[in-house]
């Protein structure tokens, strides 16, 4: 029992928070709660296919690729080049951050370095090549380019610092 609680602590805490909040929300306003559950369901349906695709991808990644290949490309031995590879990958890919965490965890398990994984997550969320046209349209060329270039550089710096500390 204790072992179970320990390994699922995050899950238990999060679900408890949600439960309490949901009860408070129902007590305060039923309609608003119903609306928020509708949004929750919609968000879930929207993310579900991506989740399944990424989970299958993770299965293949860990099932087919031997760990030494992963660690050679993005592991400790790959050094700075490995960080650069994942940073570029994170900038180009358009994966919801929510799903990027299990993906990152699987890379870590497969032999990737902490630095590479940190760079991947940070550029994935901060640098958006796919959303670039939209950002330029709304924010202007100068601000968009500055923001994305700085984000890319800082993501790598964040990754390096994390590698040193962890």
């Amino acid at each position, binding site marked *: 029992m204790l072992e179970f609680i320990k390994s699922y602590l995050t899950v238990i805490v999060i*679900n408890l928070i949600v439960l309490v*909040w*949901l009860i408070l929300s129902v007590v305060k306003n039923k309609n608003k709660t119903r609306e928020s559950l509708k949004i929750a369901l919609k*968000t879930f349906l929207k993310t579900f296919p991506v989740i399944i695709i990424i989970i299958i991808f993770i299965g293949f990644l*860990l099932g*087919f690729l031997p760990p030494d290949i992963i660690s050679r490309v993005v592991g400790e031995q790959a050094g700075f080049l490995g960080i650069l590879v994942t940073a570029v990958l994170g900038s180009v890919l358009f994966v919801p951050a929510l799903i990027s*965490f299990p993906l990152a965890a699987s890379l870590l398990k497969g032999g990737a370095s902490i630095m590479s994984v940190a760079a991947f997550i940070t550029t994935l969320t901060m640098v958006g090549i796919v959303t670039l046209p*939209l950002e330029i349209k709304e924010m202007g060329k100068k601000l968009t380019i500055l923001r994305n270039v700085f984000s890319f550089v*800082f993501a790598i710096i*964040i990754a390096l610092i994390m590698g040193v500390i962890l």
Partner: protein
Amino acid sequence: MKPVEISKSNEKIKQKKSLIRDYIIMGAVIVATAVALLIFTDKSGPVLSVSKNYFLELIMILPAVMIIIGLFSVWIPKEMVVKYMGKTSGTKGIFLSIALGMLPTGPLYIAFPMAIALLKKGAKISNIIIFISAWACIKLPQELVEIQFLGIEFTLLRLALTIIFVVIMGIIIEKIIDFTDKKKIKVEERV
């Protein structure tokens, strides 16, 4: 207000189309996986067990995360974020930009028009950059998933560093924009 409504309904149709497309792609991927696993039968064991484990771990946490997103968007509407961001200044402004950006109010493409509206209202460029960056990379419900998969140590360290560098970035970009704008004015004066 009319053009906004039209673009909203267009947006809905577009979303529905991309939803259907996503499910078709998912179906195709599942079929392709089944075929691949039938060919490489020796690998099907490891692949399926890895996928199953990750699926279980996600499904224990995702409904809760989705409900948090729903509760946030209903109880803390976008208008409130705009209201508070309009008043931002100084250190308080920086913290407020981060805090408001962290709320799960929607995808990044909503943040851009909001940011521009705020900029026109007089918000500082640095705060806008911080707001957009926080919006993009520090979402409260997502961080719960990050803790689940990458551990609390990794998550907190990455968040702390991200916040520090996002603030630095906001200030640097503001300085650059100010500098180039001034130069432009000078050139125009000379002309």
